[in-house]
């Protein structure tokens, strides 16, 4: 990458430069990349502006009418004049609005978890790779421990501990943060491993040796010199991790440690909806599932494209 190490450039010119770069060229010539980034962007915007786009606030229990429950798509509820584009679920929630709000939670959990995993992973990877020795041994063994625990267990552990330490009045917000912690914590290992590997390579290169000879401290060397040069694999992992985190959140919800049913994420909606697959209320499952698929697939495709685009050997 040529753009990211230039830290003085202004954002606007950075964008222009990115457009002109090799990666930008590859982007302009890849229909997959253009379509998937458009889909992802639209979905993210829809989530951000959910309160404006939704017809009701599904998180407000006072706005629900149980008797509207199980209204099929494009039809009127039995006991009220309301119309529902994508139908309603078992609580009488408008599926369309619930998806918008649910996507907010899923994306928030996804982005926050990846950010958390990335920060921890990069920091530990840099330390591990640059200093080696005992620091390296300890960090890599912790990584082993981390890999051992299925994320469901990590989630349950964190949930239990969090329950013990949070004051009772904040408990209702707990599930979201537990999910972020659990997914973020099971995610950092791959960042750490990649960064460690790249650091091992970079630290012996001449520019790092030179910086060291000039008497620069370890911290500036790590963050000013090495980090920018290991960012491209990190970016690829981050993209794919975002998709994985959104899926992981759904899986955890299936196992009973997901977002609460009163404030459902996409994953919780799918967990609830799968109970109605056999009974004929397909819309409760299908619409959230399709949304999740569109989101995860477009992010995955972007990651795929990015991996190829950033790999100079494949150009």
């Amino acid at each position, binding site marked *: 990458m040529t753009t990211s190490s230039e830290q003085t450039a202004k954002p606007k010119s950075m964008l222009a430069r990115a457009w002109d770069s090799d990666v930008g060229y590859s982007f302009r010539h890849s229909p997959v990349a253009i379509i998937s980034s458009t889909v992802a962007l639209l979905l993210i915007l829809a989530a951000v502006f959910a309160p404006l786009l939704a017809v009701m606030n599904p998180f*407000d*229990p*006072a706005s*629900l*009418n*149980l*008797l509207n*429950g*199980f209204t099929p798509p494009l039809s009127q509820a039995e006991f009220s004049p309301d119309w529902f584009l994508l139908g309603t679920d*078992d*609580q*009488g929630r408008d599926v369309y609005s619930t998806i918008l709000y649910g996507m907010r939670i899923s994306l928030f959990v996804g982005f926050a978890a990846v950010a958390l995993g990335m920060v921890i992973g990069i920091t530990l990877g840099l330390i591990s790779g640059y200093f080696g020795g005992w620091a390296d041994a300890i960090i890599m063994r912790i990584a082993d421990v981390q890999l051992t625990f299925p994320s469901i267990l990590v989630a349950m552990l964190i949930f239990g501990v969090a329950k013990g330490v949070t*004051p*009772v*009045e904040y*408990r*209702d917000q707990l599930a979201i943060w537990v999910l972020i912690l659990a997914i973020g914590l099971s995610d950092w290992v791959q960042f750490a491993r990649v960064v460690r590997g790249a650091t091992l390579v970079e630290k012996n290169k001449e520019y790092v040796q030179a910086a060291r000879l000039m008497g620069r401290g370890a911290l500036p060397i790590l963050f000013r010199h090495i980090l920018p040069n290991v960012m491209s694999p990190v970016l690829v992992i981050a993209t794919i991790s975002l998709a994985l985190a959104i899926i992981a959140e759904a899986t955890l919800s299936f196992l*009973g440690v997901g977002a*609460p*049913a*009163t404030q459902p994420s996409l994953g919780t909606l799918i967990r609830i909806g*799968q*109970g*109605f*697959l*056999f*009974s*004929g*209320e397909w819309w409760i499952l299908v619409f959230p599932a399709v949304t999740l698929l569109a989101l995860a697939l477009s992010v995955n495709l972007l990651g795929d494209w990015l991996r190829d685009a950033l790999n100079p050997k494949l150009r």
Partner: protein
Amino acid sequence: MFKLFASTALTLCLAGAASAETFKWAGTTDPQTMDPHAVNSAPVLGFLNNVYEGLVRRGKDMAVEPALATSWEPIGVGEGWRFNLRKGVKFHDGADFTAEDVLFSYQRASSEASDTRSWFAPVADVKVVDDYTVDILTSAPNPIFPDSIANWMMMDKGWAEANSTALPDKENGNYATLNANGTGAFMLKDRQPGLTTTLAPFDGWWDEAEHNITEAVFTPIDNPATAVAALLSGDVDMINPVPIQDAARVDERDGTKVIRGIEARVIMLGFGQDRDELKYTAMAGQPNPFKDARVREAVAKAINVDAILKTIMRGSAEPASQLVSPAMRGFSDALAARPAYDVAGAKALLAEAGYGDGFSFGLKCPNNRYLNDEAVCQAVTGMLAQVGIKAELDAMPVQNYWPELRADNFDMYLLGWSPGTFDHEHPVRFLVTTPNPEKKLGSWNFGGFSNARVDELLPMVQSEIDDGKRQAMMDEITSIYQSEHAYVPMYVQPLVWGAQDNIELTQRPDNFFILRWVTVN
């Protein structure tokens, strides 16, 4: 996959010789043990009812009928009960059933190591009169004792002692954990804990068999969707339960059907009413509104039970007015109406109690204990929001739920109660009396409801022999807990079983699946 059988009693006697007709069924939970005295839980007792038998048993309508005892009569005035045992009954290993086995089963089932010992709290002594007569003496008059021992199962003394399993051992297990030797219609053929359990009919059974099964295989399937798929694809013959939302589909599909009934379990809301402060939400530490009976009444009026039954329960449950369903003994017919759904009335009551502006609180709920429990709690949250009080729902798996309730971590909670004795006295004893560990009273009364008159009446109910007087006292207790709104009973949980069309079976309200009433056509 099923051959047609003429459904006469004759076929099953011959069936052993012909190609085996295997009946496969699935339930949510595997019975933990094959030991009838080790664990007091519905999956274990329900399953073992097919293998072991008690002195009395419950018929298709839940009425107590003779089993290993042919008759019983009171001794003196409330001193106890004399049981006359059936002659010629054999255990599966061929041993004779005698009074010694009854005494042994009493000792075993009431031992420290047994979970069922609370059943024998009223018993002072058991005396063997002769080989086929047993006296069970009670410390106080106990009119319902024969009704309370249908699940007390008889084990052969010789077999237990020969296999060094004279006492149950739940923690480490012993021979009886994996093997069984009862007098029942079915013998345990193969037991693979958590996987499959296979039963075969017992040729030497004392009663006339109504079933035509030659082999029965039970598999636990805990994911409800998988269980429904297994039934729809014909991989099993019967499942319990069918998720309520899938009942219509199972019913409509060619080849499968749904058997519905009303379970004995009443689903209700409880309140933390013995403490001064709320525990949850931003209002934690503020005065507890649920101490005021008017607030509890407002909750009762705010809940639209009919809407819950119509959508979430899909019309397959009945509303409840008391802590037991009308089918139970001691139900008060005069007090069968539940508070009407009345939003304005609920708001008026709240205003009267000084909460016209509403308040917020924490609602605890299990999410894998009762049918659609979490969805019901969500609906309750919505309905309470309509009258201006904001419930913050915290739903959790049952293994976390009971410890939370015991630690008093709730403002309001959901509870289901199934009376083990099919008597109104049972929930009153556990849920309504003032908690008193020494007397073993109110042990599930988490909210701490307390009323001196109820505490006074309960022992009188327990020892009253006259049905009319007993019912009058039950009525008084009912009117007290109803007018105090100690709980908000919502509905009686439905039973929804699914089976292939060629299966005939009987559904008992205690949700026990009795194999001897199954016919494969």
